[in-house]
């Protein structure tokens, strides 16, 4: 019996020694290199992970001594959860692409570091000013820059040209106002004798982040949802209620959109399957649609009402705290490398995201792409009318209050007025500590 015990002890000791030795060896091997972890999400179709891995490999080749561990971390929501959990356990990622709207949350958690202190040379300062101003709205607050635009988007409208032709509409002209959308949608909705619909006029998705698509309506109605400081919301303003009424009416009054909530993830599929003739979705889906739509399609700005416009959306680069100085410099280098005009153009072409800086659109590669595929420039042109995406302190909770209200109105549980009054009340309660 004792003999067995001794054997066990010896075995455990041996395992421990091997583990220790491996540990020492790995740390010795990496002592020379700076290793950075980089979390990123995937929110649109296409081989995104492959593209990112390619960039990282190129960066490592050009910058020996820096190793980037690129980690695909799921949806935006998953990535934020993983990054913050890791941060709270003391091992945050060094770099992460997270929603631009998570800025206040990340600041409140004291998790990220602003870019301002890193801008030492003139070249750096010019770089920081090189992005579209519309994208910087969600990246700066309190006079500091907390995020650098990377995979940014706006909402655009895709339409099926064949469906337009079949309905007797001009296939090259998308509805440009709310009224035209209703009129065209009515012609595009195909019903059989017993009232069953085989093709809907339009789908505006309402799961996941309905508030974002809703901003495409409120912005056209010339109302804002929050103040710049992220401390007050305006959900119960008449213009907001009106915008929601219009969204609900598309389903319930004009009957050109399915009733109930519409799944964000399957909306592009509905479009490919000709279940809907028009869809609203992120520009980030552009390349996906181009690859999968078996019919000619068009891309247009969102229709106008009192005004025109769309919220921006998508992800920014953030630098987490707790990095040593040389690590932070390396991380900064990587962010700069990922946002050069050439890379921004390349990333935009590969995915459909809007290339984040004006000079990216002047590169020869991008010029050729736009000449070949003019739809790609629609999102850029829409940036003139773009507003900041809904973002406040305790953002996830405020957003949920609005999302719940929107879904309640869309499923018919509450009137738009009631839904927005309730959402505003809840948001005001949540934001009270920040006043």
């Amino acid at each position, binding site marked *: 019996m004792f003999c067995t015990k001794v054997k066990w002890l010896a075995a455990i000791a041996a395992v421990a020694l091997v583990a220790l030795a491996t540990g020492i060896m790995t740390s010795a091997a990496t002592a020379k290199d700076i290793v950075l972890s980089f979390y990123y999400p995937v929110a649109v179709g296409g081989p995104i992970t492959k593209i990112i891995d390619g960039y990282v490999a190129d960066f490592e080749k050009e910058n020996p001594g820096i190793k980037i561990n690129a980690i695909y971390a799921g949806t935006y929501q998953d990535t934020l959860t993983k990054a913050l959990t890791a941060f709270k356990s003391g091992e945050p990622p060094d770099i992460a692409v997270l929603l631009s709207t998570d800025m206040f949350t990340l600041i409140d958690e004291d998790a990220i570091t602003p870019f301002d202190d890193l801008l030492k040379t003139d070249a750096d300062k010019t770089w920081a000013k090189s992005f579209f101003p519309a994208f910087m709205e969600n990246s700066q607050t309190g006079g500091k820059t907390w995020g650098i635009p990377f995979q940014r988007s706006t909402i655009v409208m895709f339409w099926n040209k064949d469906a337009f032709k079949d309905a007797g509409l001009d296939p090259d002209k998308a509805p440009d106002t709310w009224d035209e959308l209703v009129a065209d949608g009515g012609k595009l909705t195909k019903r059989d004798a017993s009232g*069953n619909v085989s093709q809907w006029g339009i789908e505006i998705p309402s799961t996941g982040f309905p508030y974002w698509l809703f901003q495409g309506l409120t912005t056209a109605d010339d109302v804002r949802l929050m103040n710049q400081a992220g401390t007050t919301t305006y959900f119960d303003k008449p213009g907001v209620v009106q915008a929601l009424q219009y969204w609900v009416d598309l389903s319930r009054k004009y009957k050109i959109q399915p009733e109930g909530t519409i799944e964000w993830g399957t909306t592009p599929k509905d479009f490919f399957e000709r279940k809907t003739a028009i869809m609203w979705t992120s520009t980030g889906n552009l390349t996906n649609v181009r690859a999968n739509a078996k019919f000619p399609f068009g891309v247009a700005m969102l229709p106008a009402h009192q005004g025109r416009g769309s919220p921006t959306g998508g992800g920014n680069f953030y630098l987490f705290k707790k990095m040593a100085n040389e690590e932070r410099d390396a991380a900064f280098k990587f962010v700069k490398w990922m946002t050069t005009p050439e890379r921004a153009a390349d990333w935009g072409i590969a995915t459909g995201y809007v290339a984040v800086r004006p000079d990216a659109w002047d590169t020869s590669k991008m010029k050729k792409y736009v000449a070949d595929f003019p739809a790609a420039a629609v999102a850029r042109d829409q940036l003139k009318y773009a507003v900041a995406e809904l973002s406040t302190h305790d953002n996830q909770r405020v957003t949920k209050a609005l999302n719940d209200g929107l879904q309640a109105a869309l499923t018919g549980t509450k009137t738009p007025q009631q839904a927005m009054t309730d959402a505003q009340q809840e948001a005001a309660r949540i934001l009270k500590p920040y006043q």
Partner: protein
Amino acid sequence: MHGVEPLAVAQPPPQAQYARGGSALAVHIYGWLLLLPAAVLLVAFTHYPAVQTLIDSFYSTPRGRRGAVFVGLDNYQTMLADPVFWRALQNNVVYATSVIPLTIALALAMALLINGKIAGRPFLRLSFFTPTVLPMIAVANIWLFFYSPGYGLLDQILGLFDSSTHNWLGDEHTALGCLIAVAVWKDAGFFMIFYLAALQQISPQLAEAAALEGAGRWYFFRRVTFPLLMPTTLFVLVNAVINSFRLVDHIVVMTQGGPDNTTALLLFYIYEVGFKFWDTAYAATLTVVLLVLLACLALGQFLILDRRIHYQ
């Protein structure tokens, strides 16, 4: 469980064996040391987190540089005033009271069916058991496709009868029902295995005797088979109750609690509060409620039902 004789209890070692070790104290230490590995695991992963959760529920959520402060029952007051909490609780009650009886009934029916001598029995057994083998995430993704409006399997089948398309998961009236169906489909096969094992323990002589007495099949099931299965039913019931509060993977995949919280279950809401809103103190408060709820259910099951069950 089924009338098995109590396991042979290891005889205490004769005094002589540890007399060498010395005093009675050494015996105690020896005993505690034997218990230690299990005790450490139990304390570290069950008791410590539960107690810590209870303590956290009396503090505010630390954010950034602001630490946690003692707030007494504030979190509990917030909870009582939180409509989403009540909604989630109500949903969970509806969900549990539908999923548990349906799963048990289906499991029992399937077990009875494949316990008899019918053609293709191995194939049936396999197909009844398959859903159990799949991970919940995979199941949810399969069903997400079944439910998609228009071209989903369900709508395609209904389309044969010229029915209009249904927005199954997007309609507040059908969304929770859809999730209940998934849970039943997923768990029934697992519980069937237990019923099948129990059925095969029942002596065939009982059936023969009943046949001689002229008892009908339904009468035999009601008065003989079902009472004999009661110990298994209790076991299955306990597990089904736990599952109905514990499994929320399909909600994350299929509805994220929407539309308008109609499919938010308690655990899903706790996850949302804890890992989306990062309000850890409030999440701890909700967790305490869930813990108390489950503890009461388990106690009730063991104290009340256990007495009424006939063990062979």
